[in-house]
């Protein structure tokens, strides 16, 4: 009875396309005792803010939260490398009992003296939420003392999941972007939200937009700095790539500074072309539109044949997707189609109901869709659905390998830019390098094939 019940609780989080249009349960807390692949509020906030390169990212808490996030995201910088250091107040028993505020103050003093930053983020972690340090007050005081911005990030881990962290980060960003005096609007200028410049992706998109005559005013937050963020409210459009973390910010910017926003995706040839067109249309400038068409035509002419060649090699292959946000999952389904691979399982850690609806509409019959999966579920469905390839994050990689399933990191550990036209080629290349590696041929047990998921030569 217990088994049935425990598993039933999870069943609400899993659906199969075609069976019935049930709405999937998501956006809920993980069940206690699950081997969840999810992260915490602090993690969500940190990954969004960390790419701000010249800020001091000070983690107020015991050492762990700071250690695990030291330079883990491959966001590239064209300027300061300060963000790649790890700063922690390293709270000790004494601070837990008597409060951590004095230590936080001293740490800020020291860091200001050493690095003269214009911007400091102070992240609260679980323990700070419990001992009740007044971050807001300490930060305000320090900001006044040094005439810089010291911004508290309310990211105690237990107040929700990663999405709550995204919101906390966006709240912090809103405080940074607030201009001292109102900025005048720039023409043909946009902010790019939701690109963290992993492997230099934001640079690729920036080069496209600049080519067609659009100025990329600020990127949230890849390769951004205090000064660029301060100019953010001068843009006349916001484009959002990673909806999971940035929708909230886009809405706020619209409410407070009446900057409109549109959703884009630069994953895959099709989505990249559509997105560039939509941006050009928004500005409505004939020259921009013409240049955009020229760029798309040129890029497609050189990339299509390459993609088609790969497509030929992938026929009959099936992929499983397990990523953080729903939006990325949607793009991946389309991108896999472009290279001729069927997606047979789609899951996310923190997808939202609308996104699951889109996934459901987009997916083929029989595709398994699931929220906040645990490793055994991933195993069960990947094997059952005969997936040859998994797209996921750090913790999923060895799991896939153990099953003899190829793997691509579409998360912090990606090594090549996967955005834009060139990214689409990189993506196909990566799929090829893992799916068609000879290592899978050795997966037999002194003779027999172990699981037969990969055809042997």
């Amino acid at each position, binding site marked *: 009875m217990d088994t049935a019940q425990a598993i039933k609780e999870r069943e609400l989080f899993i659906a199969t396309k075609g069976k019935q249009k049930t709405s999937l349960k998501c956006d809920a807390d993980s069940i206690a*005792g699950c081997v969840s692949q999810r992260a*915490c509020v602090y993690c969500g906030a940190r990954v969004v803010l960390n790419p701000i390169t010249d800020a001091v990212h000070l983690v107020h808490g*015991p050492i762990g939260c700071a250690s695990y996030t030291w330079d883990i995201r491959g966001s590239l910088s064209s300027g300061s490398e300060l963000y790649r250091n790890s700063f922690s*107040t390293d709270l000790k028993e004494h601070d837990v009992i008597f409060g951590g505020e004095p230590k936080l103050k001293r740490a800020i003093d020291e860091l200001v003296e050493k690095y003269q930053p214009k911007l400091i983020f102070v992240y609260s972690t679980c323990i700070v939420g419990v001992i009740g340090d007044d971050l807001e007050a300490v930060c305000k005081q320090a900001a006044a003392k040094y005439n810089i911005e010291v911004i508290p990030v309310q990211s105690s*881990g237990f107040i929700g999941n990663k999405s709550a962290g995204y919101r906390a980060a966006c709240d912090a960003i809103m405080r940074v972007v607030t201009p001292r005096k109102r900025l005048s609007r720039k023409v043909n200028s946009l902010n790019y939200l939701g690109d963290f410049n992993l492997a230099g992706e934001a640079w690729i998109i920036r080069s496209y937009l600049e080519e067609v005559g659009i100025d990329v005013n600020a990127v949230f937050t890849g390769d951004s700095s205090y000064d660029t963020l301060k100019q953010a409210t001068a843009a006349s459009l916001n484009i959002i790539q990673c909806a999971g973390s940035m929708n909230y910010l886009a809405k706020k910017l619209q409410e407070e500074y009446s900057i409109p926003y549109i959703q884009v995706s630069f994953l895959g040839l099709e989505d990249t072309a559509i997105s560039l067109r939509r941006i050009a249309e928004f500005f409505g400038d004939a020259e921009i539109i013409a240049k955009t068409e020229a760029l798309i035509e040129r890029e497609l002419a050189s990339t299509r044949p390459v993609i088609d060649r790969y497509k030929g090699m992938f026929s009959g292959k099936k992929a499983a997707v397990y990523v953080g946000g729903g939006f990325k999952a949607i793009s991946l389904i389309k991108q896999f189609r472009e290279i001729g691979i069927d997606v047979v399982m789609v899951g996310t850690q923190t997808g939202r109901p609308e996104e699951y609806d889109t996934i459901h509409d987009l997916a083929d019959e029989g595709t398994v869709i699931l929220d906040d999966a645990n490793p055994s579920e991933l195993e069960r469905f990947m094997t059952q659905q005969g997936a040859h390839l998994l797209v996921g994050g750090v913790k999923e990689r060895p799991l896939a390998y*153990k099953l003899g399933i190829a793997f691509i990191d579409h998360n912090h550990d990606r090594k090549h830019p996967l955005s834009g036209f060139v990214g689409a080629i990189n993506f196909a290349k990566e799929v090829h390098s893992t799916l068609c590696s000879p290592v899978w041929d050795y997966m037999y047990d002194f003779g027999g094939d172990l699981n037969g998921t990969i055809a042997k030569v």
Partner: protein
Amino acid sequence: MLDATPKEIKVRSSGGLINPAKTCQPIGAMYAALGIHKCLPHSHGSQGCCSYHRMHLTRHFRDPIMASTSSFTEGSSVFGGAANLKTAIKNVFTIYNPDIIAVHTTCLTETIGDDLPTIIKSAEIPEGKLVIHANTPSYQGSHITGFSNMVKGAISYLAESTMPVKKDQVNIIPGFVNPGDMREIKRIAKIMGAKFILFPDTTGVVDSPMTGKFEMYPKGGTTIAEIKDTGNSKLTLALGRFASSDGAELLEKKCKVPALALKTPIGVKATDEFVMALRRFAVREVPYELEEERGQLVDIMTDTHFHFHGKKVALFGDPDILTGLTEFVLSLGMVPVHILTGTPGGAIGSGMGSFEEDIQEMLTNAGVTANVKGNGDLFTLHQWIKNDPVDLLIGTTYGKYIARAEDIPFVRVGFPVLDRSVHSYFPIVGYRGAMRLIEMISNALLDRQDRDAADEDFELVM
């Protein structure tokens, strides 16, 4: 440039850290628990910590790391986590069916003061299954302390003395080392003909083979029966004071098994001591096989000593590893000038001595003066190196920033190593491990010499 460290050293009194050389207790507890067969480590706290710990271990070992979490919400942190933990225990046994759950706390549950023994006592635990726990507040000690605490936890729950006379067997607590090291320790004990129980034993768990199946509980790990039986052993060898002594002492207190604390067997001398301890216990001559290995090691040391002599080296990492490494590099004629660990010396609640004193004593005997620090960070180490440059840096992956900024050869040893693979499969302990260390160190030094050599100095034979 990835170098944000000023050369000028100023006193830092805030107690904050810049670029830590340690991490928090729970991950150590999780690692120790993975060394129990069919055990699911459970993190009592929010799901973030658990996710970080699994991710970090996954990156180091490149194997799936399983652990469950109580998934705290705001409510649980106000009303206490008893309900979460009880539900979690029930769910874990029904869904994942381990033989044993090893619960560790996090800073959150320590701060709100959840009383684990009471909660566990009132939890529904299926017949024949076990739940043990360790308190691992992350605001004390480090990951090493957490490892030690989980070893203690398992012993205090499980070990029992059930026989009037002790068995002819020895317990070995290996410390926070890689499965490659644990395999080597077992191999040596086997060659010595000793009957032994290695606990914890992560071999076959975090270095499990590719089978085409996902095993929630791979073949490896010390069995519950073996851990129980540690109470009947004649002797416990604690390898590494910081990670292993507390467990050994508890066995002595609880089950009257005498404890012998040794260094982590890195290098000739420390390995000799380990082998001699086994010999005395097994009352047996050292077999030729080991003698041969030792002879080979010493032969290699003499063949290559001129590469090392007088070379200045900086070491950082976990205290037990550093103690062994310091002794070893001294034996090669190198000069360790900076030695730093992030773990606070003499962690709270334990009878351990100070890391700094231990190391200083070794250095004094060798006539070397050096910067030595417990509870330090890599910012400090970097400043030391800027002021007193070295020829070689040995430490975890995080040393790569310093190595690059100062352009010094770098050898990766310890936990974590996130940017190289295979390291966890091979030992640094034992005579073989020492050979491997020599190979790593001399390759790093000689590659550098080749790289920097002018054409006329570029040599074929080195």
